[in-house]
């Protein structure tokens, strides 16, 4: 299976998991990915991009809402950053979690 396809599938799983059980689905899914895919090519890279994709899809759904700009800029102001930076944070956080949790699992499974 190509990395691209793996990213798509894992991203879909993250999207579905987040919708079903909330944000904890992200670390759980990417950690699980790190365990089961430790022998595949670049599992941490795949998990990182899949995490961005998985939440990015949901973000695009949010962006279809009529208040998206107001919410993003409002929350940016609350956190003393701007609206675009808040959106970037929504993508940066899953990237970091996906990277770190899959990396931990991968390191656990790796045999040297």
């Amino acid at each position: 299976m190509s990395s691209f396809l793996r990213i798509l599938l894992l991203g879909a799983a993250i999207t579905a998991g987040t919708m079903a059980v909330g944000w904890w689905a992200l670390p759980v899914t990417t950690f699980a990915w790190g365990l089961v895919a430790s022998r595949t090519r670049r599992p941490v890279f795949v998990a990182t991009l899949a995490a961005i994709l998985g939440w990015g899809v949901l973000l695009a759904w949010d962006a279809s809402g009529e208040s998206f700009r107001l919410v993003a800029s409002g929350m940016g102001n609350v956190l003393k950053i701007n609206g675009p930076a808040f959106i970037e944070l929504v993508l940066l956080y899953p990237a970091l979690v996906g990277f770190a949790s899959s990396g931990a699992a991968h390191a656990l499974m790796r045999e040297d």
Partner: protein
Amino acid sequence: MRIGPLIGFSLVTGGLLWIGARGAAPLPALGPLLDPANGVLAMSRTTELPRTWSGQVPGLSAPATVTYDDRGVPHVKAATIEDAYRAVGFVVARDRLFQMELQFRASAGRLAELSPRALPLDTLARTIGLPWGAERRFAALPKDSPAMRALEAYADGVNAYVAQMPKAALPVEYRLLGRTPMRWEAKHAFYFLARMNQTLSFALPELNVLKAQLLVGREAAEALYAPVASIQEPIQPNGQKAPRFDLPPMPDPGAPDPGAMGETKVVAMALSAFGAMAEGDETRRQASNNWAISARRTRDGHAILAGDPHLDLSLPSIWYEVQLTVPGRLDTYGFTFAGTPGVVLGFNRDVAWSATNTGADVVDFYRETVDDAKHPTKYQVDGQWRPIETHAETYRGPRDVVLLEDTLRFTHRGPLRKLGAQWVSMRWTALDTTHAAASLSSFQAADTAKSVAMLMETTADYPGPAQNFVMADREGNIGIRSTGLYPIRPAEGSGLVVRDGSTSASDWTGYWAPKDYPQSVNPPQGYLASANQQPIDPKGGSRYLGADWPPPWRAIRINQRLRADSAWTPAAVARMQVDSASARADFLVPYFLDAAARLRAAGRETPQIARAAKLLAEWRRAYVPSDKRAILFEFSMERLNQLLWDELERPDSQAALRPRRPTGLALARLLQQPNSKWWDDRHTPALETRDDILARALALGLEDVQKAFGKDSSSDDWRWGHASPIRLNHLLAIPAFSVDSVQARSGPETIAPRSAGGTHSASERLIVELGPTVRAWTTYPGGQSGNPFSVLYRDRIWKWANGAVDSVIFGDVPAARVRSTLTLTAGAK
């Protein structure tokens, strides 16, 4: 296994998960916040009302429809009155859920569960008995009463909304605090009412009298916070065609009686423990206007009613606008509180009503004799020991952490506190169970009243906080009554003394009968008005109702304008609601200018005084945003108060014993006494007179303005709107959700009002014309939605600031103005 990378990745993962789950101050938990499926950005999909939607509410006897108009006002149509309240609970919860919970917590003393910084507010709320009183009042409500049915129906609606609320619609405040909504209970409305009582009726004139007594003696202290207002423009018409200025000489500041010093000090400090919140004199700041014009004084021959309650402004507003229709039984429109069912201020097809705060003295204190100075279990009355009711109180913080444990004690009078060696109990009408149901049912009955006479009858038992209810009906009648429980004290005494609690002879003997309340119906003058002034002219021999009345500057201006016109229209009334001309300035400015002129004649005028007087003389005495002289007057008044009341200063270490500055009524009296000892500035060796102090205040005021806004008096920085904007703070004071630079036509003690900090002004405006077809206009600063991301969160602010009001839809909403339609059907509990 690769140990090094495993440890590194695990640490990073752990850190990220910690921040995701618990947050890192000041950041909230980032996981649920950033989650795009159900987190804060998901609110984008739920913030605005859908075109059509549906919900289920247990107990509905038939489907109810809610049509939101383009201003976001829900028009509820239901089969029964209880169904209407279920629907209101549902829609108010959608728009104001967090506000409802916060208001409950403020009264219950449970704010610290959200933030430990709120602990002092919690201890005060519980100390003055807010939750104790709310529980007692709720328990006194008959289970099958209309008020109880209304509360339960409303709670059903609120909880039904919360149960069906999409995760994405959770209000942002809960997300930032990491909380979920609490279950709403019927009794929570009584907590809200207790909090309103604290805001509106927790006035402690005796506290200021005692504190001043420590500094200037009893006689001077009583004169500073007198039970008689020296300028009279009463609510109950006195037949005069102009305000009356009775300005008797003020006694000079005296020396405190050393013998009384000890006891007075102890009691004053004990009262301070009860009245910490009253230090800023919150109750005295709560001002409002209302008036009614009879049919014969209006252009079109229909009575007109106007009201604008002045409260601390917040986002969202304390008010929520709604129409309730139950065919054949109820058709009412107006303002409701988020958390209580029914329209509180508004109108129906026949009558309209509004209210201002009466400010009566309904709190008294008693020195108690207890069996044990440290841990009393009994207190003595008429030689008999009575048990003290004790409550173990636990104050919790976030995550259930125990912040404080305390024991609260209560006598039959109310909360009991100790400071120093003295135990003092407090009695307050807000904690009594008398007419408890009427605090809600009065408004329910008003919603269906048919005439002024019926309104008078249905609100007669209303217990408080005492309000000056003004009313008008379609027959052209008008009426006003200052309604609420007013204590009858022993020997018709005043509330300015602390009584001996060891005898039942000190207790209240009852409450005034409603026939004795200040009131008037269809007076010959053809109009009625109130603006928190002393309700009855004391020349008529009125009983003690309160003390430390605010000066009636707004009342003077309102009456002046109402007298001057006999062809009123709703548009003219709307303009009058934002009148910023100042009767206060009309009275005070000449004293400043005359003082400067006399110093000039005596050759003692400095260039700074001359400059300040010239600038002040240019002022047109109105607080419009573009005016560049009002700020000089206000800064000079602040300096005047500092210089004049130096006798009431205390060292910072005794700040709790510093009395509040007397109102303008005491100042008005002193202005008639140019050589009173009050004018002398104790910080200087010279003996100052009135003119010296006025001129000095003017010069210092100019200096202050120049320091703050530059020396160029033609600069835009001197504009009133720039120098003194209105501020609307979010409930959690989050700057991003607050609006802090609203330029509005409004000034201190003008009809269009504002406080010094700009956080207090007209919380809503209502105008009703009671013709064959009732027409009404409303606005308030804020918007219907409590969601800071909604277009309905702050959409009304700018129109409100400009003095504009919206014509309301009273009846079916035209298709072109329908924003959303909600259908509610019966659901399971």
